[in-house]
């Protein structure tokens, strides 16, 4: 009953015109970035972060969250119609979605993808609503050692899932910690690595860092090649409502995908990409006709699309209850909450119930908005796909420039963004991954303070991380994962795991 009461108060928050408007803008932009290859949810969220500075924290988070789950809806459109995933979580949808389109079944593929996403998205919100409050109650008892070990575990899982060299992924996470801690020492007040630049006293801003690393570097990579117009598979999209047989084939994959996505979303380092691949693998394995997969099986669209949407709901749990982001998008959202003066963690639900329940309620509304945006209005998104990149990239650069400048009204932030843009571009050329760096950048200051506090408590003994059950479990898992990544048999398996969303 208490949950229903809280949820109704969340709905009262969200039905305010401003919040509804920001929810709509969020899911609209989310669908747009999902449809457009070349910019993903991380880039879009960091790009729009400065634009939310004038709004309330709730409106801001509603909009930024809307971009995240909206991108999951939009990503399938390009996968199905162009065979190019709009964002990483829709890569696997290309396999059967595009084949369905080639067979004249683009409508049912888009339809089941939207309905599956809606069902999974709604189920994951229910899960978030049920799991988060009790978990937050437990997390209140966590101290610095527990937080330190959980953050180490989160970063290790993300490193483990990185697609390239694990050594290079750890190097990037290490560098992320270094630049995340630049600025004044929180305890002694002494300056660290500021090189006499007053703008660096408060540290490097999240927005210029992420916009440079993902937004600007993506533009540089794209303009390296000829900016020709993408070819869209010319087919008339008809019959968006799947028929009875389609529903029979898809309903169980949707349910399985929802469950799988939700739990993988909760795990640190897990998320939409991993869950969509896992769902595809499971559906193919248990199917009576695995040979149909890759040739237009509707289960191959329904399962992964449901899983990636469900994962977005699950991913909010560690962020809102522990204050630990489980993936890069959540890391950026954590930064957004902090900028607005809201500290995510076990006390968020009790101290800022309007934010937690408002976000939950906005997700219900947002999912309905997305269903309307993605089914009747599919024709508009197909037209959006035809916008040439030579028009898009100047706009992306302009938004990045304005975004970086407007937070502190400082051109120094533009310089920082450019530096990280060039660094991100070179990193991609030299096969270094940005995702572990961003997560470590956000977690760096928290990691440092929890490490120093733990050592203060234990009078300098590292055994404190192994003498408390939750901290010990986290540290042991972290060590096991690091060891397993250097054992050849495990390493081989790790290499086929797809990269988490990086743009």
């Amino acid at each position, binding site marked *: 009953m208490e949950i229903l009461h809280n949820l109704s108060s969340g709905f009262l928050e969200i039905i305010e015109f401003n919040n509804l408007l920001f929810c709509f803008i969020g899911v609209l932009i989310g669908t747009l970035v999902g449809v457009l290859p070349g910019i993903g949810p991380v880039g879009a969220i960091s790009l729009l972060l400065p634009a939310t500075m004038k709004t309330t924290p709730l409106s801001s988070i509603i909009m930024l969250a809307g971009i995240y789950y909206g991108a999951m809806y939009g990503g399938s459109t390009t996968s199905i119609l162009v065979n190019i995933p709009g964002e990483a979580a829709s890569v696997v949808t290309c396999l059967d979605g595009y084949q369905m389109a080639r067979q004249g079944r683009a409508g049912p593929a888009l339809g089941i993808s939207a309905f599956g996403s809606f069902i999974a998205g709604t189920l994951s919100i229910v899960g978030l609503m049920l799991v988060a409050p009790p978990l937050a109650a437990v997390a209140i008892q966590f101290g610095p050692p527990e937080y330190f070990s959980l953050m180490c575990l989160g970063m290790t899982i993300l490193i483990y899932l990185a697609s390239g060299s694990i050594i290079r992924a750890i190097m990037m996470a290490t560098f992320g910690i*270094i630049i995340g801690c630049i600025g004044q020492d929180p*305890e002694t007040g002494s300056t660290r690595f500021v090189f006499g630049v007053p703008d660096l006293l408060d540290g490097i801003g999240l927005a210029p860092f992420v916009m440079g690393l993902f937004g600007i570097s993506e533009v540089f990579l794209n303009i390296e090649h000829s900016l020709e117009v993408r070819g869209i598979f010319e087919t008339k999209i008809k019959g968006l409502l799947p028929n009875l047989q389609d529903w029979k084939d898809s309903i169980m994959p949707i349910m399985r995908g929802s469950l799988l996505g939700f739990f993988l979303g909760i795990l640190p380092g897990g998320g939409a990409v991993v869950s969509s691949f896992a769902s595809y693998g499971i559906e193919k394995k248990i199917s009576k006709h695995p040979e149909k997969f890759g040739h237009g099986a509707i289960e191959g669209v329904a399962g992964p699309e449901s899983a990636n949407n469900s994962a977005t709901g699950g991913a909010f749990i560690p962020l809102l209850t522990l204050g630990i982001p489980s993936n890069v998008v959540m890391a950026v959202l954590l930064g957004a909450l902090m900028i607005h003066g809201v500290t995510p963690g076990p006390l968020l639900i009790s101290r800022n119930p309007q934010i937690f329940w408002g976000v939950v309620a906005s997700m219900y509304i947002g999912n309905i908005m997305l269903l309307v945006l993605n089914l009747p209005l599919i024709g508009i998104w197909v037209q959006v796909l035809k916008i040439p990149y030579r028009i898009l990239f100047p706009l992306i650069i302009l938004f990045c420039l304005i975004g970086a400048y407007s937070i502190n009204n400082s051109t120094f932030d533009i310089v920082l963004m450019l530096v990280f843009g060039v660094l991100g571009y070179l990193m991609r050329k030299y096969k270094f991954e940005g995702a572990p760096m961003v997560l470590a950048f956000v977690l760096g200051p928290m990691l440092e303070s929890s490490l120093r506090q733990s050592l203060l408590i234990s009078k300098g003994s590292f055994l404190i991380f192994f003498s408390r059950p939750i901290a010990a479990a986290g540290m042991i898992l972290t060590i096991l994962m690091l060891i397993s990544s250097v054992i050849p048999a495990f390493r081989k398996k790790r290499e086929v795991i797809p990269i988490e969303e990086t743009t």
Partner: protein
Amino acid sequence: MNIHHILGSIFWLLIGAYVTIAAYKLGLGYLRKPGPGFIFFCAGLLLLFLASIDLALTFISRQKTYNADKPLWFGTRWKRVLMVVGVLWVYVYIVHVLGFLFSTFLLMVFLFEAVEPTKWWIAILSSLITILGSYCIFELWLKVSFPTGIMGF
């Protein structure tokens, strides 16, 4: 041997070495009360260690990691990337002098025209629309105050 791989490792090796030394100078403190350089020292040392392993692996491993024979910029329009970086760098310096509207207009014309050539009037029109749109959204609606420059706008 892969020259790109080696270059990448050496870059991070140097960064790691610099951070370790600078962090040591900041003060490490004691284990029971870590100082301001403690986390940087640990991270710098780890970076140094990992970059060394990464570098060593290039010499030990016989397997080529990626396109060892092909230059990274082969067949790409890297000069355009360099040009855009240069122009953005100049933009940062002229935005306070010429003001946001005029300097951003010039930047947009360059981006629309120079990277993928199109008709001049299309580039100018697209830039005007973009600038006016962003001015309305950010300056008038979201109240972001942009640099005005010597011309006062």
